C-alpha cells in the first residue's frame, strides 16, 4: 500500500501498473484518475489551486484505505493526491485497488473515491474569468457516500 500527497506531477499509468506488483495472485486492477477540467459550473477554468491540511490529510487517506482493506479482500491499494497549483488537463488524483476478482477492486476504488471526496481535507480554488473562487461541495458526493452504509 502506498499513499502520497505531493506538489509534483505524477504519471497515472505508472501508478496503475504498480498495483499488480510481483503478485501473480492479482487477477483484477481498477484505477481511477481525476483530472483538472477546463470548465466548471459553466465557466472556463484557467487553473486550480489545491489547499490541504498537512498532517491530517495523510492520516485521513490512510484511514480510508484501511477501511477499504477491511471491507474487501484487496492485494494492494495505491493513492496519490496533488496539492498546490495545477493546470487544466493535469491529473489531480489517482486511486487504485488490486484484488483476485474484479468486484472487490471496483467496489474498493469507488468506496475510496467517495470517502476521499467528502472526508479528506482538500479544498479546490479555481481561476475563472471572474477571478478566483472556491469550488462548492456537491450534494451528489454526499449521496454517493450513503450507499456504503447499507451495502455490503
Amino acid at each position, binding site marked *: 500500500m502506498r499513499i502520497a500527497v505531493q506538489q509534483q506531477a505524477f504519471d497515472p499509468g505508472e501508478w496503475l501498473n504498480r498495483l499488480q506488483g510481483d503478485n501473480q495472485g492479482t487477477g483484477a486492477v481498477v484505477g481511477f484518475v*481525476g483530472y483538472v477540467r477546463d470548465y466548471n459550473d459553466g465557466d472556463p477554468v484557467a487553473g486550480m489551486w*489545491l*489547499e*490541504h*491540511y498537512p*498532517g*491530517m490529510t495523510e*492520516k*485521513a487517506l490512510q484511514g480510508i484505505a484501511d477501511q477499504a482493506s477491511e471491507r474487501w479482500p484487496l492485494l494492494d491499494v495505491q493513492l496519490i*493526491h496533488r496539492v498546490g497549483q495545477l493546470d487544466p488537463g493535469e491529473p*489531480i*488524483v489517482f486511486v487504485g485497488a488490486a484484488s483476485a476478482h474484479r468486484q472487490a477492486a471496483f467496489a474498493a476504488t469507488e468506496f475510496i*473515491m467517495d470517502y*476521499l*471526496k*467528502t*472526508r*479528506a*481535507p*482538500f*479544498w*479546490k*480554488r479555481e481561476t475563472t474569468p471572474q477571478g478566483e473562487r*472556491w*469550488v*462548492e*461541495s456537491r450534494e451528489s458526493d454526499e449521496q454517493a457516500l450513503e450507499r456504503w452504509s447499507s451495502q455490503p
Partner: protein
Amino acid sequence: MINLQFFARYREQLDCEAEQLPWDASLQTLADVRQHLLARGEQWQVLAEPRIMCARNQELCSLEALIADGDELAFFPPVTGG
C-alpha cells in the same frame, strides 16, 4: 492552550490560518469554541454556516466532541478534493 486552525474559505475570510486560545474549562466542546469565536463579531459569522466541518487532533469529529487542554482543533468548509 488550544491550537486553532482554519482552512480554505474560512482561512481567507477570517484572514487567520492559526491561533492559540488559552485553555478554559468552560469550553467543553467544539461547539463551545465555535460559539466563543462567533461572539467576536461580524467577521466571524462565516463559522455560523450549518455545513461547517471540524477536526480534533487531525481527525474529523462532530461539533459535540469533547475537547481537552493541548488539543489541535480545526474548522473548515465542506471538503472538495479528488
